[in-house]
């Protein structure tokens, strides 16, 4: 489908953010396989990660349709500096390594995934009205699966917050860490204005206010005070290509097979 030359930069910029966000968080989620708190969670989390990877694939496909390259190379071959995911989503699950002595932080996983799923939900609701029809159609499809993700993470969040004791302490620490970089998730990058002007997605600040508005009653129900001022971007702005060594490590691991033979069929 031919599109207006002026729309292409903000549109591709938005798609890279959507695709890269889901891609790296799905990868971090898959690292929990076999390590989740119980077997039902293992099933649930891997299912959610699989869905999320499916969403990334759809967004990469939209980029491929716009002539940005094929889906596999978009997912695997792009360097760290070319990635547009929020930094929060690339951070390791915790100290240690997946294969040995992993000391992953479940509180961090719950908070990161819940806050992200809610932000993604707000984005998808906005994108359902996107002026770029193929994106609006994908958003509708993503939304149907996201419904279950959000339900899942919200349940964990509320239960752990209400559990008291060590759970509460660790959750509060995780919330501090997540909020310190959550501005980066809500950020739409340097072309945010153009995205809104072309009706691709709502204004960045509108989306942010919606997130705060919908989280407020949840925070109140678990006696947690969070304000807009708590949102920061401490570790860097992934939307302009700033990333951590955690992303380098993740990309070299997840692209290992692809790099052995980029022409292999998947």
């Amino acid at each position: 489908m031919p599109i207006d030359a002026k729309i292409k930069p903000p549109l591709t910029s938005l798609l890279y953010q959507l695709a890269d966000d889901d891609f790296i968080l799905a990868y971090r989620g898959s690292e929990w396989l076999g390590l989740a708190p119980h077997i039902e969670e293992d099933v649930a989390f891997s299912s959610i990660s699989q869905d999320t990877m499916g969403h990334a694939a759809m967004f990469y496909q939209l980029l491929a349709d716009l002539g940005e390259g094929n889906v596999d190379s978009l997912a695997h071959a792009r360097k760290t500096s070319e990635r547009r995911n929020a930094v929060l989503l690339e951070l390791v699950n915790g100290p240690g390594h997946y294969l040995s002595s992993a000391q992953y932080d479940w509180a961090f996983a719950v908070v990161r995934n819940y806050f992200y799923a809610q932000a993604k939900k707000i984005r998808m609701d906005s994108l359902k009205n996107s002026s770029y029809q193929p994106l609006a159609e994908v958003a509708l499809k993503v939304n149907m699966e996201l419904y279950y993700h959000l339900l899942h993470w919200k349940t964990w969040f509320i239960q752990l917050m209400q559990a008291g004791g060590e759970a509460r302490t660790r959750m509060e620490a995780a919330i501090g860490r997540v909020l310190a970089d959550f501005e980066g998730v809500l950020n739409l990058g340097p072309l945010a204005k153009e995205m809104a002007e072309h009706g691709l997605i709502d204004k960045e600040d509108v989306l942010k206010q919606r997130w705060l508005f919908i989280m407020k009653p949840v925070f109140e129900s678990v006696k947690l005070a969070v304000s807009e001022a708590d949102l920061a971007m401490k570790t860097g702005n992934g939307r302009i290509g700033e990333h951590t060594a955690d992303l380098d490590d993740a990309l070299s691991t997840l692209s290992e097979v692809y790099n052995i033979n980029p022409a292999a069929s998947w």
Partner: protein
Amino acid sequence: MEQDQILLKNVLEALHNVKDPEIDTISIVDLGMVEQIKVEGQSVLIKLLPTFMGCPALDIIQKNVEGELRKAGIFEKIEVQFIYHPPWTSDRVTETGRIKLKEFGIAPPPKFISETGEWHVDCPFCGSAYTTMDNLFGPTACRSILYCKSCKNPFEAMKPVSTMM
């Protein structure tokens, strides 16, 4: 025109032979995955709706569709496309499909979702409504795990998915 009708019927029959790779009682037609069949001379285009996007069975389904249509020996060009629009919803499963799912031991997707978002599933083995949800997520993206307190069997149910969510 009549020729086209016969051709379409043949294609649909062939597609009925393509089963869900993990539930071999139900065809992709009864799952509601077939959105469009386009026949033009010697070529056929099948448009399919994936149930869940991350479903790893999609490649297998595509190959099986191509295989079945090749077997029919009618077409020179066979093309299979996955499209997201309209999105697949669980109410696309046909009445036959619902029976076939039950035969396999999987409860069909609940038809009605209440305003509270709660849904109820009857046991596919004994029909009891006395069931509990063990895990919203199951062995595949489209299924949940439940337990029947009447006949004491664990079972799976196809998740309800709707655009209203």
